[in-house]
């Protein structure tokens, strides 16, 4: 058996073990799935279900969300681009046919699946959660085992509510110490990815631990776990604590009253045992983390804003040198150029990584009373985040600065809905991927925290947000 049962168990071990329906001698386990989230891309999986003449095994544990293709300005089906409208109609037909609850654009709880799940209390500690989206690791912020899957696996879960998986190794990322003012979970995550590489956690379940992590809000933990996949991790988790419980109390689908208190006791018991063993550990000093930006075409191409664009001739090996050369050519940057000299054409604040209320507050703190030098889009993570932000007047801060305030969806993170960065343009973005063409063909993406994107908007170039935030937080 892969698990070190002779010693204590980690958070991951406890949650994994509780979901094993079958454990085979070859190391494969059949896992029970507690929540299955679907979006418009699930049509391939529904086609597979239809081809077998099968039914959805547990519609009560299956939830659809319209997010990937939804327009952020036009919310009426009849006025949408026909191809996008068809994507939404397919999801509506499939969820209707199988009696699956759908959070559609006309639902007051609609939003990005990884924002809606936690917000609705569908995401709970100790659950096993899957979705045909690689950022499903987000839900691990609650101490859930959550991971992204492909269409064949989505079809398998639809038909059986189970999934075959091999047990990943365990990696603990420990961050200790107090963060400097304005430093966000995004800076922690990008620092980790830069340290271990975009495939550094491949084959591993990550547990984030240490005093810095304990000090993060749920929003911060969601951002951190969200980016686990950008380090190659199968999933990322944080042990449930009082912060977790405080977030979950009163959420619509979460247990209520005495049921909640009983559940809370079980959830707090999921924390890893003192003598639990990890296969690997990485330690970071939280007090040393600076505002981070990416310069290349992989999330591992990340550096503190005070640094300069790297030189391929100084790279460790031929493969890395080739990557840097290729990335700089695509990004139109030159070695040695100061990162803070890079001018941007537009900004984007949104995505499952950074579109929650705390993210919008952080951006607004920099933008308040200032004007953006470039155009930009702000897309809140859900209709509920939008409502909350408007109640706090944040929408006025964004629009007064000259940015556009729109509805919730995946939007310019992936551009499927038509919110695109034009070819050759450079975007400072709170999203998760700076891949070539991710925000549109020929687009150039620099990843950073919401406060850093706000600072780039105000100055028109990548900027250390710390002086702009002085006296404001």
């Amino acid at each position: 058996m892969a698990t070190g049962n002779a010693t204590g168990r980690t958070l991951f071990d406890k949650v994994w073990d509780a979901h094993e329906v079958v454990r085979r001698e070859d190391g494969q386990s059949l896992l029970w799935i507690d929540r299955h989230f679907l979006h418009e891309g699930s049509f391939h999986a529904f086609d597979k279900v239809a081809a077998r003449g099968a039914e959805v095994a547990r519609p009560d544990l299956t939830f659809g969300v319209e997010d990937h293709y939804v327009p952020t300005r036009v919310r009426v089906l009849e006025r949408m681009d026909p191809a996008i409208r068809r994507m939404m109609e397919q999801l509506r037909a499939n969820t209707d046919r199988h009696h699956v609850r759908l959070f559609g654009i006309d639902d007051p709880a609609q939003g990005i699946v990884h924002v809606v799940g936690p917000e609705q209390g569908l995401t709970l500690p100790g659950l096993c959660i899957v979705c045909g989206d690689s950022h499903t690791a987000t839900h691990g912020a609650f101490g859930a085992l959550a991971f992204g899957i492909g269409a064949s696996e989505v079809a398998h879960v639809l038909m059986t509510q189970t999934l075959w998986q091999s047990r990943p190794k365990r990696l603990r990322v420990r961050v200790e110490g107090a963060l400097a003012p304005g430093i966000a979970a995004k800076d922690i995550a990008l620092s980790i990815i830069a340290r271990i590489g975009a495939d550094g956690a491949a084959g591993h379940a990550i547990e984030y631990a240490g005093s810095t992590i304990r000090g993060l809000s749920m929003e911060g933990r969601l951002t951190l776990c969200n980016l686990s996949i950008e380090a190659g991790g199968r999933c990322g988790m944080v042990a449930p604590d009082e912060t977790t419980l405080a977030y979950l109390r009163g959420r619509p689908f979460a247990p209520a009253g005495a049921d909640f208190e009983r559940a809370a006791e079980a959830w707090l018991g999921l924390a890893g045992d003192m003598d639990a063993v990890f296969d690997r550990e990485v330690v970071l000093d939280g007090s040393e983390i600076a505002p981070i930006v990416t310069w290349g075409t992989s999330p591992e191409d990340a550096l503190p804003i005070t640094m300069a664009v790297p030189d391929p001739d100084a790279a460790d090996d031929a493969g890395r040198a080739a990557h840097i050369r290729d990335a700089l050519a695509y990004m139109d940057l030159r070695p040695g150029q100061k990162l803070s000299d890079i001018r941007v054409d537009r900004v984007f604040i949104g995505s499952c990584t950074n579109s929650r209320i705390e993210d919008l507050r952080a951006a607004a703190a920099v933008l308040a009373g200032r004007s953006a030098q470039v155009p930009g889009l702000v897309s809140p993570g859900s209709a509920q985040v939008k409502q909350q932000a408007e109640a706090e007047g944040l929408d006025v801060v964004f629009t007064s600065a000259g940015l556009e305030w729109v509805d919730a969806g995946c939007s310019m993170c992936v551009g499927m809905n038509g919110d695109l960065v034009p070819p050759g343009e450079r975007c400072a973005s709170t999203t998760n991927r700076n891949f070539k063409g991710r925000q549109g063909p020929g687009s150039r993406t620099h990843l950073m925290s919401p406060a850093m994107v706000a600072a780039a908007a105000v100055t028109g170039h990548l900027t250390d947000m710390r002086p702009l935030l002085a006296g404001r937080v």
Partner: protein
Amino acid sequence: MRPFTQLQAVGCPLSLSGVDTDQIIPARFMKRSRAEGYGGYLLHDLRFDAGGAARADFPLNAPTYQGAQVLVARRNFGSGSSREAAVYALVDYGIRCVVAPSFGDIFASNAVNNGLLPATVSEPDGEALLAALEAQAGPMQVDLEACRVRIGALDVAFAVDPVWRTKLLNGWDDIDLTTSHAAAIAAFVAGDRARRPWALPRTTVGKPD
């Protein structure tokens, strides 16, 4: 699913690291059904320029690598998005094996579910395979039974999860296997209700009017 045992086919070198699934299939091509085929969109924005013309310097466009069924790439192939369409693009184009020093986990799993072999080699062996294919185009051999890749006299080992190897060798599909465990699933569900009563969503929540 078609079993994978041995393959003798043209190999194409792709000397890039971090070829993410956004590059393997750009998002804008993912609205079509599988029946329409994804092969034409494989690595679209690397293969074609903004005007849609084939880039002469891209290996898959070179006459010598036409008909390739094996791709050899650098580390972290298939990282990023879980889109299975990336595997559909490779398979529909005719690729049956990708050789690289590391793969995105979700991509590799999707590959196996579609009969595509993700073969993991060491970095030095990967560089040697790239060099051999770039020096002289020609057939390469992938032997899943022996877990070896060969180009002429160059003969290197590759790794693949043993469970995946068995699945690929036999062309097995998970669903049939899972159905045989129906009793175990039912027993799990019955016991789980007592073990984790909090795991079900509260059902008093209605859909708003």
